[in-house]
């Protein structure tokens, strides 16, 4: 078990190293100079040269990468070219909102998808099943940004129940939740559609097993059979999909944050790429990679917890 975790940690470190090197290479090949982006087209050549010197852009690329890497392993991600503040600070002020949004969306997705999927499976072939399937078909087809627009027009513009966008900060948790509810719903509904289908088919698969019939035969109620006996055995494919969806959420928030003008990581990475703020892009892409790799790792651990057969023999 410990060996497994150590092996995964080594893989984690190597993945991040490879990602950061790839980002650095791509950003250096991409045409664009932070000094022109910051100073604009009226700037004189000597002002641009002065800025490049100030930002340390005249050092050889490989040296800049190694210097960044040296700092990064000690927790120092450098100072942003365009924001003029430490990268760690920039990320730290935006990370909570993005995590809260992704977390809320995940909770909503899992709760709603399991309920719908189990319901559809237990009503297999009947009207309820068809309704869930139709909903999920629609959910897969509708892009999250378009759904967001509809939600805003209904709940913010017409009914005025919720703010159309923006984020008031964490001082007032209720206001923060109000700001996140629509974006999280928009993200969650699309994900729910996928997960509900997976839940339904995994449940149907399990329900054909003889132990389900046995459980029913011993006189257990249908709800108990579904939730206590069938669902736990159907969880492996469901958890796999949840893990993949967490990765999708990271990219999904970029679009949603734009529609709801939320101050999250998605907007930051977009701004940083436009500004050729290499040092910010590098830290952020590495962070995204870390989130995705961690999600996969948690999924693997979850398998062990769900299915004792997968645990290594001690």
């Amino acid at each position, binding site marked *: 078990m410990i060996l497994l975790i150590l092996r995964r940690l080594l893989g984690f470190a190597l993945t991040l190293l490879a990602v950061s090197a790839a980002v650095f290479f791509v950003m250096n090949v991409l045409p664009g100079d932070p000094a022109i982006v910051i100073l604009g087209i009226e*700037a004189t050549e000597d002002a641009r040269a002065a800025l490049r010197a100030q930002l340390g852009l005249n050092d050889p690329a490989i040296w800049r990468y190694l210097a960044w890497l040296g700092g990064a392993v000690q927790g120092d991600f450098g100072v942003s070219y*365009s924001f003029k503040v430490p990268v760690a600070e920039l990320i730290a002020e935006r990370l909570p909102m993005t995590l809260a949004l992704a977390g809320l969306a995940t909770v909503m997705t899992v709760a709603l998808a399991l309920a719908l999927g189990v319901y559809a499976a237990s009503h297999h072939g009947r009207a309820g099943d068809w309704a869930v399937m139709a909903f999920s078909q629609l959910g897969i087809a509708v892009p999250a940004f378009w759904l967001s627009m509809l939600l805003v027009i209904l709940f913010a513009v017409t009914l005025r129940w919720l703010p159309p966008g*923006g984020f008031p900060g964490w001082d007032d948790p209720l206001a923060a939740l109000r700001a996140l509810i629509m974006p999280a719903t928009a993200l969650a509904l699309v994900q729910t559609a996928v997960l509900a289908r997976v839940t339904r088919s995994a449940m149907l698969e399990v329900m054909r097993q003889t132990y389900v019939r046995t459980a029913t035969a011993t006189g257990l109620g249908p709800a108990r059979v579904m939730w206590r006996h069938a669902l736990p055995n159907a969880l492996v494919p469901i958890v796999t999909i949840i893990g993949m969806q967490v990765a999708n959420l990271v990219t999904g928030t970029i679009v949603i944050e734009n529609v709801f003008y939320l101050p999250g990581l998605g907007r930051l990475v977009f701004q940083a790429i436009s500004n050729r703020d290499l040092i910010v892009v590098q830290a952020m892409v590495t962070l995204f990679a870390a989130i995705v790799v961690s999600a996969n790792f948690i999924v693997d651990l979850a398998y062990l917890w769900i299915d004792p057969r997968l645990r290594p023999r001690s």
Partner: protein
Amino acid sequence: MPAFRTVAPAALLAALIVVTPAWAVTSLSVGLQQEPTSLDPTADATASIDGMLTQNVYETLTVVNEQGEVLPNLAKSWTVSHDGLVYDFVLHSGVTFHDGTTFDAEDVKFSFVRAMAEGSVNPSKSIFAPIAAVEVTAPDALRITLKQKDGFFLFNIAQGDAAIVAPESVETNAIKPVGTGPFMFTDWTRGDRLVLSKNAAWRDAGSVAIDRVEFRFVADPAAAANAMLAGEIDAFPGFPAPELMEQFEADTRFKVVVGSTEGEVILAMNNSDEVLKDLRVRRAISHALDREAIIEGAMYGRAQPIGSFFAPHHASYVDLTGTYPHDVEKAKALLAEAGVVAPEFLLRVPPFPYATRSAEIIQAQLADAGMTVKIENVEWGFWLEEVFRNKNYDLSIIAHTSPNDLGNFARGPEYFYGYDNPDFVKLWDAIKFEADPVTRDALLKDAQRLVADQAVHGFLFQLPKLGVYAQGVTGFWQSAPVLYQPLAGVAKVK
């Protein structure tokens, strides 16, 4: 030449501080499409820094009003020597920076010397190039000596690039701006909003009707419209979507104000290209363009056509839109005369809606005249590097948003226009050094005609300023002769 002298309006330091009761706080929320990454206009060219902070938080010696006139600001008056080289400024006294430090002539000297210095990263360093010396003659008096006459000097030092900053706070202005203006910086949540509050100690604080200003950053045009409709935002002075104006005009809760900016939108031609070097080819392209159709299609009719590189709201403007009337046959004939058969051009388009929308219309119009245009949509960092710096393009579409930028045509073949005309350089030098308004006016008209006659670019339209305001909000400028919007004259009645 007589010395000219300006005196500040009668409202000299009226130390009358209006105490506003807490229940009467007037708060205004202003929508902006572009969010800056730093807040120092003397080190970053992002237009929204000026849009939010110049003349609100930061002040300058002089100020430009909505009509484009130069008026006193931190300098309450000045005199100019007969040879036009020595400027003596008298400054307001008793002014303090928002952090409590005193403002005096030493701060002005510090700001100018810093911008001129070797190693300066000022985005408009060239406006300080004519300065020979800056001397403090008294705590409230300053003398600036120029190397050569500069007709734009007083206008240029009214821009955010020449903001007066203090040595005590200059290092942190990028994240916590400190100036002398009517509003103080309060808070900035990056990615979301920036908050200013009224500076009760400002010299004319009685004229400030807003206690708190909240700038909200909304990049997406549809989200901007929804934020206005939901009542989250009171004013959107630079609304990003001309196609939505009609909707707001029909809604009695809003006012739509269409004005002009300093942005000339051009179909830029690489004049150093083998084919485009030929005046007949450039004229053929100009004849092939149908401005009305471009304005209708790309801007929903909300823009004024231009025939040269000059803003129509300017007093010295000449209408040259008739120089190359839309005439496909004429365009074909000119191409044939130049011996160019079925030319192909690469049109590299930056990611701005006015540009991307114009591109396809232009492609179709040039195709009618037998020219093939390949459109390549590029990202802004790429455009700056490949088009602007490396001149790696045939055609592009771009708005030049600086005031007085007709001088671009005097920048020589190194500039991305690739245009080389010693006659224009001579003409522009004359304009720069000319202080007599009548002669200058005639010279500016000559320069517009020369650029139009040479068909250096396809001149398309003046970028409009589309403002959407909630009823009750007043005082925003209709047109924008500069990048800033003073909020001291803005009011909001509920």
